[in-house]
């Protein structure tokens, strides 16, 4: 743990967020280590997207602090260093895959080769010139993911990037995430599917806006004495309730 403390990419302290009059995150404190693939897991409605939106600096925050790569979340210098994939695909449906990526790359001021690389990374080479509205849900999600990869950001914040994808594509994407982490990129990846937890270096388990546990999958297993991560989650929930 001490080695990781030296390289914290995201530090969240006593984060308090209210959305539509409802407290979504009462007082969240957690950290994400540099160069890891950290999974943000929890059931839908647990506050995953709100935490992610706070990290990329688009969520109005009522209290606490979020520090990203040594800057306050949303600070101007971070805008070209953080790649963000929203939960619902945020791409232009009436443009082709390549047109979408070219637009985002131009806004970023990224070099031209980054577009073709991103298309290849999400395996959309065969669909690059298709209009997004004609693509399937999973393909659209990958276009949205590709926009986050543009310009080789230092931090990738991905909100449920593997929803609706077939197992082969999911495996390929997780391989890509780890390859990026080896090159020094930090990834925060949310999922509501517990079986993706084992693919992460570290986990943040969230429930009702509270951090249930954080640690590596092995640490959490050792702590709860069960092997299935679904059971780990249940043990932690039961433990928190008593």
């Amino acid at each position, binding site marked *: 743990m001490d080695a990781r403390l030296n390289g914290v990419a995201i530090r969240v302290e006593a984060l308090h967020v209210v959305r539509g009059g409802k407290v979504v995150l009462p007082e969240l404190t957690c950290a994400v280590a540099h160069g890891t693939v950290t999974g943000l897991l929890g059931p839908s409605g647990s506050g995953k997207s709100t935490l992610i939106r706070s990290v990329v600096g688009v*969520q109005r925050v009522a209290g606490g602090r979020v520090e990203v790569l040594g800057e306050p979340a949303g600070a101007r210098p971070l805008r070209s260093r*953080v790649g963000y994939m*929203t939960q*619902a*695909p*945020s791409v*232009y449906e009436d443009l082709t895959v390549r047109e979408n990526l070219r637009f985002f790359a131009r806004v970023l*001021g990224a070099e031209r080769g980054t577009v073709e690389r991103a298309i290849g990374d999400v395996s959309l080479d065969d669909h690059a010139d298709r209009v997004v509205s004609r693509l399937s849900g999973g393909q659209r999600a990958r276009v949205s993911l590709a926009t986050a990869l543009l310009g080789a950001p230092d931090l990738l914040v991905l909100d449920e990037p593997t929803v609706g994808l077939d197992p082969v594509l999911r495996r390929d994407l997780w391989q890509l995430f780890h390859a990026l982490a080896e090159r020094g990129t930090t990834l925060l990846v949310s999922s509501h599917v517990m079986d993706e937890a084992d693919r992460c270096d570290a986990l943040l388990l969230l429930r009702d806006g509270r951090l249930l546990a954080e640690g590596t999958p092995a640490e959490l297993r050792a702590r709860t004495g069960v092997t299935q991560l679904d059971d780990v989650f249940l043990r932690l929930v039961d433990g928190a309730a008593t």
Partner: protein
Amino acid sequence: MSLRVTGAVAARVLAQLRRDPRTIALIVGVPCLLQTLLKELFAGSSPVFQHVGAPLLGLFPFVTMFLVTSITMLRERTTGTLERLMTLPLGKFDLLAGYGAAFAVFAALQATIVSALAFGLLGLHVAGPQVVVGALAVANAVLGTALGLFVSAFAQTEFQAVQFMPAMVFPQILLCGLFVGRSSMAAWLRWISDAMPLTYAYDALAHTAADTLDGRFAADVAVVCGCIVLALALGAATLRRRTG
């Protein structure tokens, strides 16, 4: 202010419009049809067509671009692309200027084709230079774009956005002086008319039609330009990086 980003936004908006040929056909075709209808309707009384033709030519892009922009921007807000853009190195003004530039290009295309029809085939006549009518049409289009960007913040659905057209545009057209001269309006109506940007846009077109490009005309143009800047500033104020 970044020319790269403004250019990227403008190119993207134009690419989106190009993907939608039916909308392009409607944007160009509808004013042509209306000009022709107007000409035929007043076939027995040519002065009416001469009176209404040039203002219609100059004001139509305002209506079109107001509608198209408010819907496009509303989509940007509701589909999450705006939130995505707000995490990128993109200034709010770059985004708005990009929209303005794209629709100005489009308005120029619309004005060129409708002018060719009206001044050529339909025999519309203005005493002043025809090119000024075209330039005013483009300025009015940018004004419509700027106002459309602003009002899109107050609509949650496309149904609502469409209703802003009659709410924001019809009163301006009724009170701008085209249907009833401003001098014969009740005082309180004239005060409202004074506060509406389209009044000045119409006045500038009327001055062009009469070839009285005097100080009054220059003041009208200045007011229209001022309103564009004001509407863009109001629009920028509605774009928030952080939302609830």
